[in-house]
């Protein structure tokens, strides 16, 4: 179907089903129950899942296929956001032109930065991309304030021209981003016997785009172009000796990956129309690296899993506090309960980054293939070694 083989089609279908039914799947606990805090089915978080999913899919096209580790990818995300917000300011609140502009601008920057950075490989490439991203962050934060809004970020105002739309709504408010009249933030609640499921326009819009992005990434992985990128990763010298110049291919991969990041940035601005320089900082670039590695570098589904995993647990861990811990461990004797809570305390709430750092180290040390490899290992252990042939949903890491 759609030019995919059976394995990839089923993988795509799984992703489609998961994203379209996410409001149900992510809300397994009834409203008001003690476990309701583990629900993730609210629009803001679901949007973040898919948007960072797109970002990570794009990053994976570069890092997973060619092995070039970019430490400045968030720059494109930031540029995409700025581009989209400017489109909202100038043209109108329709998200389509904003996203298109975001992708184009990010792509242009990626061409320039990629052209320069890809002259080097290995750690030099990482540092060059890092240097570019830091430079752009510093400029966006200070000198370019008229364009980027500086420290406060770029925001919509009532005085923006908005040629194709109204500068302000009838009520005198700033209009909200919409797709031909469908407001991104509007949602419908569906109540079924204690469960509340929220369907949000913005989420479904982003989810459809993510499915498209995912489909595109499958096609890239399976294309001769993808094969060439993998050849670059496994042995660039040998590729050069066969008379092929690897640079156009790496540049294409870099630009595609930068455009994915721009798309994610544009979507981010469409959900919440403001853009700040901190989106470009190198910690943000580190985050997408974490997502991709955690999920599984070079696999199709890995980056999406990693993005979902990190965003979900970031949200959950930040919510847990000592009181909740005391409730959980109430069955233990008092002294032991306090001790357990004391031990866990640094890892929850604000300590989420500590947990993330430890988790990330463990993954890099013991499970270089990320969650996908973990899943494969578990499946092998359960089914025995013969199960390899029946593997359907997962693909092997590109080595």
């Amino acid at each position, binding site marked *: 179907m759609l030019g995919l083989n059976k394995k990839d089609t089923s993988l795509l279908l799984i992703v489609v089903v998961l994203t379209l039914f996410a409001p149900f799947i992510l809300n397994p606990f009834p409203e008001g129950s003690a476990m309701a805090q583990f629900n993730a089915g609210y629009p803001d978080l679901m949007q973040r899942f898919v948007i960072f999913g797109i970002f990570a899919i794009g990053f994976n096209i570069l890092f997973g296929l060619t092995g070039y580790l970019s430490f400045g990818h968030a720059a494109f995300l930031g540029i995409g956001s700025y581009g989209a917000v400017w489109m909202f300011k100038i043209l109108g609140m329709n998200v389509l032109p904003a996203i298109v502009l975001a992708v184009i601008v990010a792509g242009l920057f990626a061409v320039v930065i990629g052209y320069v950075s890809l*002259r080097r490989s290995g750690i030099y490439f*990482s540092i060059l991309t890092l240097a570019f991203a830091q430079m752009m962050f510093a400029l966006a934060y200070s000198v370019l304030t008229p364009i980027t809004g500086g420290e406060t970020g770029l925001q919509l105002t009532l005085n923006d021209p908005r040629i194709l739309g109204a500068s302000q709504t009838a009520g005198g408010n700033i209009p909200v981003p919409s797709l031909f009249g469908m407001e991104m933030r509007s949602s419908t609640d569906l109540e079924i016997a204690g469960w509340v499921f929220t369907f949000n326009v913005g989420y479904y819009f982003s989810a459809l785009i993510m499915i498209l992005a995912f489909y595109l990434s499958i096609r890239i992985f399976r294309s001769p172009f993808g094969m060439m990128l993998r050849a670059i990763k496994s042995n660039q010298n040998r590729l050069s000796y066969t008379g092929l110049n690897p640079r156009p291919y790496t540049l294409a991969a870099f630009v595609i990956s930068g455009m994915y990041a721009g798309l994610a940035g544009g979507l981010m601005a469409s959900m919440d129309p403001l853009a700040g320089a901190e989106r470009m900082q190198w910690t943000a670039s580190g985050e997408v690296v974490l997502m991709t590695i955690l999920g599984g570098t070079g696999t199709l589904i890995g980056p999406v899993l990693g993005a979902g995993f990190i965003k979900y647990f970031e949200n959950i861990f930040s919510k847990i506090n000592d009181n909740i811990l005391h409730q959980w461990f109430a069955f233990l004797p008092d002294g032991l309960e306090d001790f357990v809570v004391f031990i866990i305390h640094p890892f929850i709430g604000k300590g989420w980054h500590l947990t993330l750092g430890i988790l990330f180290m463990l993954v890099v040390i013991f499970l270089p293939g990320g969650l996908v490899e973990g899943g494969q290992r578990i499946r092998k252990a359960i089914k025995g070694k013969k199960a390899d042939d029946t593997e359907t949903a997962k693909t092997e890491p590109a080595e």
Partner: protein
Amino acid sequence: MDAIILQILNGLDKGSAYALIALGLTLIFGTLGVVNFAHGALFMIGAFCAVTLSKILNLSFETIDPNKTDFLGNPLKVKTPYVESWFGPETGAALIDWSVPLAILFSIPIMLLVGVIMERGLIKHFYKREHADQILVTFGLAIVLQEIIKYYFGANPIPTPAPDAFKGSFDFGAAIGFDPNTIIYPYWRLVYFMFSVVIIGGVFAFLQFTTFGMVVRAGMADRETVGLLGIDIDKRFTIMFGLAAAVAGLAGVMYTPINSPNYHMGMDFLVLSFVVVVVGGMGSLPGAVLAGFLLGILESFASMREVIDLIPGINQIIIYLVAIIILLTRPRGLMGRKGVMEE
């Protein structure tokens, strides 16, 4: 003229910090071949050694002074640090005042230990893996170390003052024949510069003039052959890692009075130090030091008002800009050796 001298002086203290961190990074890279993204975290841990020592020295107990009352009329509670009651008020106060220089002694064993544990416990297992994996695992470690510090010390910068004796500024202009008060320079920054020169000199002397250093240099050139000669080179490289950690830590200790330490200072310096290493030339110790001072001075020249008026924002990006130009025109860096990290 005086403006130029002033900018050079201003660049020296930042340049010293860059040079010290870059020196440690290069030591680790040259000996173990590992790209250590956690080196900034070591710098930060050093700074927090100084914070810890000053907190320990300031531990106090409360006594009630019956002769005095506070503004509510209750007997006044007087806090006396333990060190003052043990060593007498004067010695105690001096100890507290000099907590930052004292932290040098305090931090060396700690940093050596941290470095050795890091190398034996984690980095050792990554020699055979790709550079990307090394970057990633040390990046993870940097996050963990930074978050641990944040957990114990909070997210706000903690001011740690220099001893009173160094609080003022030195009228450099008057000393070299300019008008007074044209070139003034805080004493502590001068101390920092001297200190870094001593440390850098010490490291080079150690490598150049001791048998241990000679073996290490031989190991940097050809690890396998040195191993075949029956020398336990791994052990010496571990010690070098500890030494590099100690250098970063000392840079951090002495930096605390210049900039109040916070948990992400390491990351801020790390990114720049990597750029410094690349500009200096991967694996070249003199290159790292030279590039550290050069970029520090360049940065301070770029922050001059005249330059900013000419090219706005140049002070923010000058280092990265230089790095990009150097990498593209002279990929080996200023003093890089042939065959190190080339493809």
